[in-house]
């Protein structure tokens, strides 16, 4: 990857568009500043607004390999940073003559399994490290991450400290199931991604679903926007709209009507209560509105 990836926000914006990602000005600015200032970027937003996609797109646009760490409750160093290959170690001891194996040999780099964080730090070229859904990880892990993000080095007791050859770019995403620690936030730029405007959503749908009829894309985006203005348990995100339009396109539909919406609504609304609320008259009314 080039040293300074993009000369301006506009340049980054068009590179993202080539990677099939349409970012609004705010997100483009956030990504640009994150690369330029070499600060991790924390992306927050409702589920399905394209946080993870943004990271993938910027990695593609900048020509950096993407290394992804999916967080979950109980995620520990062994799964995030490194682990020893115990099976190989045992085999090695058995294969060698008794008394000829010493510890230094057994805990050498060839027995080390590299997990995402170590992989990102050891990489020869500059990579993008995506730490996905950090809010799901335990707070202990967050504290550890804080250490990694400030020094970009990892200590393996048996091997010593490994420092980054190329400081990786870092993007963190969070669904806000809990507030992250202030110290971590202080290290990051912060951007909140909202739902896209209807016009933007039409553009994105047309970009992501090749061969979609234009009328269908327009009506679907308006339909999704209408649903978001209603009082639903889980309003559809952009990802749901794209899935839905894919389904409709696969069925060869040219525009929305009551039947095809009824048949495919399950890819847009994921709660039984929401599906119950949007049926019969309510559904017909919405279809009528977006068909204008």
């Amino acid at each position: 990857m080039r040293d300074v990836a993009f000369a301006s926000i506009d340049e980054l914006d068009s590179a993202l568009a080539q990677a099939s990602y349409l970012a609004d000005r705010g997100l483009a600015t956030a990504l640009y500043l994150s690369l330029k200032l070499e600060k991790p970027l924390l992306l927050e937003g409702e589920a399905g607004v394209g946080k993870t996609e943004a990271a993938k797109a910027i990695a593609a646009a900048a020509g950096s390999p993407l290394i992804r760490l999916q967080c979950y409750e109980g995620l520990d160093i062994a799964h995030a940073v490194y682990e020893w290959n115990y099976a190989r170690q045992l085999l090695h001891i058995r294969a060698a003559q008794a008394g000829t194996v010493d510890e230094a040999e057994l805990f050498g780099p060839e027995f080390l399994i590299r997990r995402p964080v170590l992989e990102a730090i050891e990489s020869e070229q500059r990579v993008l490290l995506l730490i996905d859904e950090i809010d799901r990880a335990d707070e202990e892990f967050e504290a550890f991450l804080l250490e990694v993000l400030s020094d970009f080095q990892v200590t393996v007791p048996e091997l010593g400290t490994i420092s980054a050859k190329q400081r990786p770019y870092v993007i963190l995403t969070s669904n806000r199931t809990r507030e992250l620690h202030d110290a971590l936030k202080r290290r990051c730029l912060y951007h909140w991604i909202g739902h896209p405007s209807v016009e933007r959503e039409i553009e994105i749908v047309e970009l992501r679903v090749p061969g979609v009829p234009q009328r269908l894309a327009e009506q679907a985006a308006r339909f999704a926007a209408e649903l978001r203005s209603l009082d639903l348990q889980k309003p559809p995100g952009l990802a749901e709209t794209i899935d839905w339009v894919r389904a409709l396109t696969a069925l060869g539909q040219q525009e929305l009507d009551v039947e095809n919406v009824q048949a495919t609504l399950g890819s847009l609304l994921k709660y039984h209560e929401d599906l119950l609320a949007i049926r019969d008259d309510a559904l017909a009314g919405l279809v009528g509105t977006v068909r204008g």
Partner: protein
Amino acid sequence: MRWPGSSAPCVAEHRPHAVVRHVVVFGRVLREGGLEVGPQRVSDALRALDSVELARQEDVYWALRQTLVSRRDDLDTFDRAFAAWFLRVSDRPPEREADEPRRPGARRKGGAPGPGPELDGGELEVGAWSADELLRTRDFAAMSPAELARARVLIRQIALARPLRRTHRLRRDRRRGALDVRALVRSSLSTGGDPVHRAYRSRSSAPRKLVLLLDISGSMEPYARALLLYLHAARGSGRGVETFAFGTRLTRLTSELGLRDSDEALAAAARRVVDWSGGTRIGESLKAYNDEWGRRALTRGAVVVILSDGCERGDATGIATEMARLAHQAFAVVWVNPLKGHPDYQPLAGGMRAAFPYVDRLLSGHDIASLERLGTVIGGIERRHAA
């Protein structure tokens, strides 16, 4: 904790002086608005402004927002401040009432029941255990200011147990669990690769999440202060505790009550909450909670405690719907109703009756003894309803 504006280390020589001053003062405006803006952030903001075109107002907006704000809740404040400061919009938000200095000795009716003079009577010489014992079973509503001050010390000491959940993480275990291959390899070194000593790891436990929702409407006024103190004590009991207050709207108080000093915490909470001692909309507040926080899986697997008298001005059917949603996701739902402390109490209030089917345990919360009991109940609670 003031930091020197003009002499901050972030001020670089080559930057136009006006920009630096603007950003530094703007940072201070945001601090007054309650945002945490330290020198590091201001320095980042200046570096970010170096990287964008200053002529493009939109870019300046994003650059400042992304470096100076790190919480969604603060975005509104930032937007108002940005409009006022950089766009010269004159309609600054009216000063909040709670920010005004309070005259000593006078507590406005309906004002925020923060640590007002009634509680600020200083440490009282109530040393006798018997006095404390009496106080434990005295209704909060009937307490004198002096007694409340003492009660406050007692509430702070209430230990709060929480039920445990099994964690994913494995810890060393002497007898059972999965084989700890790492330890096995190490010990095999000395025996030529023969695994003689076996070590195990098993799952351990961690406390469940705890969510506390406190009703601070008018009818709860006699209890609100004491229960808010309890929320503060609970918040300080460990990780994974979330606290909210509601009257006509829902306010998250987790970070305010996270302040260690209870006076500061209560004052911060009082500033945050705008609907003290007003009406009650339990159904809508629960809905706001479910929409905003339940959807993001805060409720899942948590013990949810609602502290309210269940007196609903609005429609009680809303409560039933939202309680069903809540109970569906939570590990257990506990309702604490101070009115239950009265011997002839029946859950007849509309809201309480609607909520009743979804509540795992209904407890009183009118005195210290009942709050102590609450801690024990939470610690031992089991899941009643089907998953």
